[in-house]
């Protein structure tokens, strides 16, 4: 953001574009656009209460849903940035796996025991950021299309995780680490707090900072953004670093939740995250995104699987329902979006 001081004219131009997209973003995140999502979530909850009654409506069950939502939620927040910025990251699941493995290797855990468990945290975050950096460099400066660059990362990060872990499951032996992440704060699990924090920071950055406005600008029309004085390549690089960081955080969460690091963690998270982002209302082609929508998207999927579990239904039926919901939510959104832009 330092290049803002380059020339005032360029800055003004950038600000104008940014403000315009900012206004658009506000318009799009308004209640109207999220109505479809709220509706879907309410319907799911009604179905849950109607079929499972108190078992569904209990506080414990809400926490179960939220804890499950938090890991994939954090990944989805990062994914929202990348997709809005006109990219895509297929490697999120693999980065989660690699980070979880790296922060639970014998060496890391030994280091953590000798110093502080925060070493495990920083290891996971660094690995996430590192992978994001490689993705970003390839896409922004190497000219590799995002789909291919992150596909390559998907394969190699998981492979590296397997090599590091020797395809075994690594147990977390640093109890302080597990105790912290598995604990409660004011009756709400720490995992859920992390998700809330990431979502809140994500929302502020996305909607209230230049970085967020530039993300929409870069995704919407990179050429216009470049002419408006935005360093598109550097910005793109930063977007992949953001999603990498989110993967590092998610890796810590899954590591604590399962008390293990494993190369099999995060399987197909890329698809879950993309699905949540897209039904949330973020355009897959970039330029328009919503953090609130993504949070709803994640909640819809996790509530869905909870309702299915409560009602003794098979996961195959669940997958079918998931597909139907993706289509329905997008159709509903289009309807609401059309109405709000035409009125």
């Amino acid at each position: 953001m330092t290049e803002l001081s380059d020339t005032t004219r360029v800055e003004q131009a950038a600000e104008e574009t940014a403000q315009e997209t900012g206004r658009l973003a506000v318009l799009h995140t308004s209640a109207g656009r999220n109505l479809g999502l709220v509706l879907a979530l309410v319907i799911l909850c009604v179905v849950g209460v109607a079929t499972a009654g108190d078992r569904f409506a209990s506080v414990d069950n809400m926490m179960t849903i939220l804890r499950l939502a938090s890991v994939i939620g954090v990944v989805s927040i990062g994914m929202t940035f990348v997709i809005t910025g006109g990219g895509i990251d297929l490697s999120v699941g693999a980065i989660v796996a690699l980070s979880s493995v790296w922060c639970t290797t014998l060496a890391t855990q030994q280091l953590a025991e000798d110093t502080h468990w925060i070493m495990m945290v920083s290891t996971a975050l660094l690995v996430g950021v590192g992978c994001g950096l490689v993705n970003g460099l390839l896409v922004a400066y190497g000219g590799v299309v995002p789909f291919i660059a992150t596909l390559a990362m998907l394969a190699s990060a998981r492979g590296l995780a397997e090599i590091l872990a020797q395809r075994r499951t690594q147990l977390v032996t640093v109890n302080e680490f597990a105790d912290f992440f598995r604990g409660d704060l004011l009756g709400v699990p720490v995992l859920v707090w992390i998700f809330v924090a990431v979502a809140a920071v994500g929302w502020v950055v996305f909607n209230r900072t230049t970085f967020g406005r530039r993300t929409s600008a870069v995704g919407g029309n990179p050429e216009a953004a470049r002419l408006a004085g935005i360093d598109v390549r550097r910005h793109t690089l930063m977007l992949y670093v953001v999603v990498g960081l989110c993967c590092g955080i998610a890796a810590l969460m899954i590591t604590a939740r399962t008390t293990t690091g494993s190369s099999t963690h995060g399987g197909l998270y890329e698809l879950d995250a993309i699905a949540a982002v897209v039904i949330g209302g973020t355009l897959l082609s970039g330029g328009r995104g919503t953090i609130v929508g993504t949070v709803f998207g994640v909640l819809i999927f996790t509530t869905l699987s909870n309702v299915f579990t409560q009602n003794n239904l098979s996961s195959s039926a669940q997958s079918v329902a998931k597909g139907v919901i993706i289509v329905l939510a997008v159709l509903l959104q289009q309807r609401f979006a059309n109405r709000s832009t035409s009125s």
Partner: protein
Amino acid sequence: MSARSLPRRRRLQASIVAVATAGLVLTGCTGNTVDNSGDEDRATAVSDNDEAGETVTIGFSGPAADHGWLAAINSSAQEEAEKYEDIDLQVAEGTNDPSQQIAQVETFINNGVDAIVLLPTDGAALTDVAIEAMEAGIPVVNVDREFSSPFAARTTILGDNYGMGVSAGTYACQLIEENNIADPVIAEIAGLDSLPLTQDRSDGFKDALEACDQEVDNRVAAEFTVESGEEQASNLLQAEDHIDIIWNHDDDQGVGVKAAFDNAERDEFFFIGGAGSRNAMDWIRDGEMEATVLYPPTQAADGIRLARLIAQGKGISDLVQVEVPRRIVLNAPVVTADNVEEYYDLGFES
């Protein structure tokens, strides 16, 4: 989640030690009530265990049924539960994401089920939530993939993975001797290498081969799926132009392995399988496969029965001990053309 209070743990520990001192490790088909799969045998057990008792709610969760063996695990568990009018089975089958499975178990705990039967996607990853269930007073029956802590399960029922490797290795040694194979080339197609059970199988195979001064010359690892079996077997055939004995850990991936053999028109070796699918038994009948080592998919069904007995406070009728044992390990016999008819009905559809 909940604070792990020491006294609670100690009480749990004490009860576990008490049961463990019973020292009951069953190998093979000891109890009629536990292991038979047909209704007709039940009459032989002198007990009222099968009579309807108080209704118990059992939560069952297993990995996604992405290959025949796991599909058989799920379906046999559900069929078994249906046989008892006093079992209310809650099924949360089908996920390979430990995070998702943890949520399922948490749901069972929230709902206060009477017992949980759990085949974890990864034993270590599900250990903590299983301990939570145990601490909430819900007995957990651990099926097939073991937890990393003895506090996580009331009872563990599993196939003998190491024994499977030993059976396969011993049979391989026998083949080498009977056929006078000098300097045999032995290959192994393992399953998912990240699972401890795969390592156990390989260790057993290696140890048994060592007993007759042999070793594995080439080892590849597939992922229990047909596709991965085909891929890895093709690689293996490329790597070795002559093989004498191949042990494939799993008959589901075996469908792919066999396809690779047929594609390459190779059949100079003795082909030994694992698990015991219907396909494999058919091949053994037709002489296309030498043998397979059993790893029964009925464990989850047995797990359901055990969970019912534990929840109702009953024991296993054919044992003197009044409580259900801590650990039951199933036998891993070798099925060949000589005895295939005997085991045919146990074979599961891939």
